[in-house]
């Protein structure tokens, strides 16, 4: 009996021991999950880090499966025993559970017996970072690329080793180059071997990438600090700063001392006023009548009396400030302790800065060219009507607007953007050509001898057209969408880039220039136009019909404005005020360039474009100021060349 009892107990014990061995350590990953169970269930962004780290650093291949399941909300806990599984939804409310260690299905369980672990977006981001080391060697290249992106977003020292390990096995040449570059950047930021870091910095010196600068800049960040006596050894001093000389004003230096608790704070005038207000006794403060306290010196006297009476803290005098400043040393201290590193980073950044300056100059030139071509486009129609015919057309801007709206209407009818632009360009020409001819026939031809009145009459047409557009299309901006192949930009490096649409506008400006030159020099219309411009009566007696020539020339100028409108509408919003935004600049372009000469218009547009971009570069926050200075510059420029850059000479100049 006793033995059987004992034997039974033994069996029970041994089975319990077996159970005890089996339950707490069922399998490697499950055991980690069990250790971190509390944190995982709490599922808080702030506390989850150790749980993820434990999984990621376990070195177990199954950890990847766990993290991936967790990331997509497929991690489930069986409520009965607290085990974690990957769950797959079956029909109804049941889930099939899979063990992480074996990969085998362990059974189907109703949802009510399970608890889903739902990571929030913050936790998912952490998981993604942790997954990176697994994904770096994933057979799927797109997964590897995702991993690299994740590293770029959140570079961490822990990723350096797995990244380095994955480089030799990389088969995709593009990804290999990227991996090596990221490895270099990670080495600079988080490497442990100083010689290797310095060598990497030197190898990247002169690289224009934004990522290189973003990596190097933290290395050379400094803090301005004040020291009593000498600067303690061991600090990486960037430079000493003398208060009052250069960037550090004495006031700022003293504030630094106050912040470091090395000197007593100065009293602001507000604090003095509050102190004075707190000690009003019988209409007097410190013996000074209240009414006198609207003067600074009376306040000083009253406060001094308060200090003498021990009722207020003493003010810091100017001598005290000077003494404190003299007694301390100010220096900018690198955050990075190693002088070798900061020196190398500084040198690399200097050489990058030179490269960037060159790149920016190129970029600015491209910007200026594109602005110049926009001005040229807007002004070329005017160069014909104003430059060749001498007609001031204030409605020119509205022709540009009509062209842009034509493009918008065509896009409503033809959804394909490429086709619609191809249709819109000739249609815009036709519409504005017709409008121009109508305007010339109805209004302008009666006013050829009265240029100022042409200006006013066309202004009347301009406000009528603008309001008409408002009535038809409303006041809100209408989109004129560029075809897909014009989206994006030609990126040469991180400093120099130009959008395709600007290249297209530049090309269009060149084409217009060519078309204009061809029409004026090689066609009958051009010949007749030039003849009528030079001497209307003589041209008439040679069999040219001046009325017809004027009509067609004006129509041509207006039609070109319409095409320019389509081009401008592609990058600017189409509103009824689109034209009036360009009209003054267009006239400026023609006047500065020199009336009656297409090369003058080109020169004018180039000069105005470059000047405006140049001013914007000097004062990048303020494009309004750039336009103001440009106009002042033009007014002064007209003083020296009243007839523009390229002036007609002799009889062609008219008066």
């Amino acid at each position: 009996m006793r033995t059987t009892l004992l034997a039974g107990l033994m069996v029970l014990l041994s089975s319990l021991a077996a159970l005890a061995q089996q339950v707490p350590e069922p399998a490697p990953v499950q055991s980690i999950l069990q250790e971190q169970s509390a944190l995982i269930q709490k599922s808080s962004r702030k506390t989850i880090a150790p749980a993820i780290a434990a999984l990621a650093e376990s070195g177990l291949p199954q950890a990847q499966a766990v993290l991936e399941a967790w990331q997509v909300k497929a991690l489930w806990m069986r409520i009965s025993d607290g085990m974690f599984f990957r769950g797959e939804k079956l029909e109804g409310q049941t889930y099939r559970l899979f063990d992480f260690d074996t990969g085998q299905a362990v059974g189907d369980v109703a949802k009510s017996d399970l608890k889903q672990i739902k990571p929030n977006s913050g936790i998912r981001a952490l998981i993604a970072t942790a997954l990176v080391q697994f994904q770096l060697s994933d057979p799927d290249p797109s997964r590897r690329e995702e991993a690299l992106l994740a590293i770029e977003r959140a570079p961490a020292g822990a990723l350096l080793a797995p990244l380095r390990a994955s480089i030799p096995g990389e088969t995709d040449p593009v990804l290999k180059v990227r991996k090596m570059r990221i490895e270099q950047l990670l080495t600079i930021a988080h490497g442990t071997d100083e010689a290797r870091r310095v060598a990497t910095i030197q190898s990247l010196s002169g690289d224009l990438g934004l990522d290189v600068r973003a990596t190097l800049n933290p290395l050379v960040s400094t803090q301005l600090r004040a020291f009593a006596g000498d600067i303690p050894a061991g600090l990486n001093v960037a430079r000493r700063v003398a208060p009052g000389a250069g960037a550090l004003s004495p006031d700022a230096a003293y504030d630094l001392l106050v912040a470091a608790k090395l000197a007593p704070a100065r009293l602001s005038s507000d604090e003095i006023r509050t102190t004075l207000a707190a000690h009003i006794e019988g209409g007097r403060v410190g013996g000074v009548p209240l009414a006198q306290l609207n003067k600074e010196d009376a306040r000083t006297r009253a406060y001094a009396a308060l200090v003498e009476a021990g009722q207020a803290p003493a003010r810091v005098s100017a001598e005290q400030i000077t003494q404190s400043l003299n007694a301390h040393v100010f220096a900018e201290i690198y955050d990075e302790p190693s002088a070798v590193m900061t020196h190398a980073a500084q040198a690399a950044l200097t050489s990058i800065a030179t490269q960037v300056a060159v790149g920016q100059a190129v970029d600015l030139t491209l910007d200026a060219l594109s602005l110049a071509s926009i001005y040229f486009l807007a002004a070329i129609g005017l160069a014909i009507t104003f430059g060749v015919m001498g007609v001031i057309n204030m409605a020119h801007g509205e022709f540009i607007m009509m062209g842009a709206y034509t493009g918008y209407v065509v896009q409503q009818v033809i959804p394909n953007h490429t086709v619609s632009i191809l249709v819109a360009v000739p249609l815009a020409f036709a519409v504005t050509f017709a409008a121009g001819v109508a305007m010339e026939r109805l209004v302008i031809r009666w006013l050829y001898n009265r240029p100022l009145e042409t200006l006013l009459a066309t202004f009347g047409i301009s406000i009528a057209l603008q309001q008409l557009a408002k009535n038809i299309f409303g006041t809100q901006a209408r989109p004129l969408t560029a075809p897909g192949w014009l989206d994006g930009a030609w990126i040469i490096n991180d400093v120099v880039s130009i959008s395709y649409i600007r290249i297209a506008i530049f090309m269009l400006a060149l084409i217009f220039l060519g078309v204009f030159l061809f029409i004026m020099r090689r066609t009958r219309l051009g010949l007749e136009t030039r003849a009528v411009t030079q001497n209307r009566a003589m041209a008439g007696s040679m069999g040219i019909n001046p009325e017809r020539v004027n009509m067609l020339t004006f129509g041509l100028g207006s039609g070109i404005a319409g095409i320019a409108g389509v081009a401008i509408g592609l990058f600017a919003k189409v509103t009824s005020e689109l034209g009036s935004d360009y009209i003054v600049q267009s006239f400026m372009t023609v006047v500065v360039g020199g009336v009656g000469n297409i090369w003058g218009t080109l020169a004018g547009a180039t000069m105005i474009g470059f000047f405006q971009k140049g001013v914007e570069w000097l004062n990048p926050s303020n494009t309004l100021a750039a336009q103001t200075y440009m106009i002042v510059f033009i007014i002064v420029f007209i003083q020296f060349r009243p007839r523009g850059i390229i002036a007609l000479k002799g009889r062609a100049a008219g008066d």
Partner: protein
Amino acid sequence: MSDTFLTRNPSTLVFLAVLALFVLSVTLLAEGAGVGVISTSFVKTLGKTLCLALVALAMDLVWGYTGILSLGHFAFFGLGGYMIGMWLMYARTQAIVVSSLSEAPIPATDSEIVDAIGNQIFGVVGSSEFPLIWMFADSLLLQLMLVVAVPGVLALVFGWLAFRSRVTGVYLSILTQAMTLGLALYLFQNDSGLRGNNGLSGLQNLPGMDHVPQATLSIWFFWASAAALALGYLFAAWIVAGKFGSVLRGIRDNEARVRFLGYSVEGYKLFIFTVTAIIAGIAGALYYPQAGIINPAEIAPVASIYLAVWVAIGGRGRLYGAVIGAIFVSLVSSWFTGGQAPDLDLGFYTLKWVDWWLIVLGLSFVLVTLFAPRGIGGLVDLWSDRRQPDRHGADLGPGAGALREKEAEQ
């Protein structure tokens, strides 16, 4: 002298009499001084219209008489408004700040008051420092002098540069338009020191006059505007009636001929350009306290072109024409755009005047330019039986104003 001057110019006398009658009747009907048939806001509108008539008068002098189509006179108008607005805003804010600081236990020092005013005025543009251009803002007298000086000096410098290099005709128009655009863009910046596109506001309240109701203030400003218009009209009539005026008209008709006769054309143009800029500045200084707010949009280039439109519709080259044009177009405009005009039902479409008025204005402007270059003022000629030379045919010579074919044949 003045007696003979007025008898030689009966139209001046008629104009002054009509103006006096108008002022008297408005005063009697207004809320502030009379029976109250005319509301305060309409008195303000009338006062503003008189100011616009004054600036149109200036425009007529420079364009109708001298032939300089300046598209910058509304900028001078706006500058005058800004100059008086600076004092109005400063003094009013000062009154508010002083009264709020007087509740503090310790009386405020002068610099504290100035800092508080700066905070109040420039808070909207994220600054609290007074820019240099506000250094006289605390003095009404100095600021009134600036009303005259700032537009005057700007016109003098700009005119000297432009006339010296013989920029004429449409080129001058474009250049003045560029000046206006440049000024407007400059004022649009927040760091221009004039509160960027917020402009200056609260100008309808005269500092120290809080006890006077707006109805009374409006009638005061109406009187002041009428007086300014009367003085401006007398001055303009006196200028154009004399030999000086003949030279101006000569410059308009043939600049080169006047120069060859030995006159300093540039001097005459500069004088008239500067004087009219000053008149425009004064008109602006009277206008904006009645409008209550001024911002850079007011001096956009298009405003100056509208000014030319008024003068052209009223009739160039005659002083009363400019006044009639300004009053007629601005009142009709505000009637149509203010929503008072009844919609026109065409059966298939209802014409809303708010939307269509500008189109009507633009087209009627084209028609006036084409068919009635003498404007509304030309109607007076029909009545007074004054005939224009009957000029037909094309120009004989290259310049505008040369003898025409048919005249030469006679």
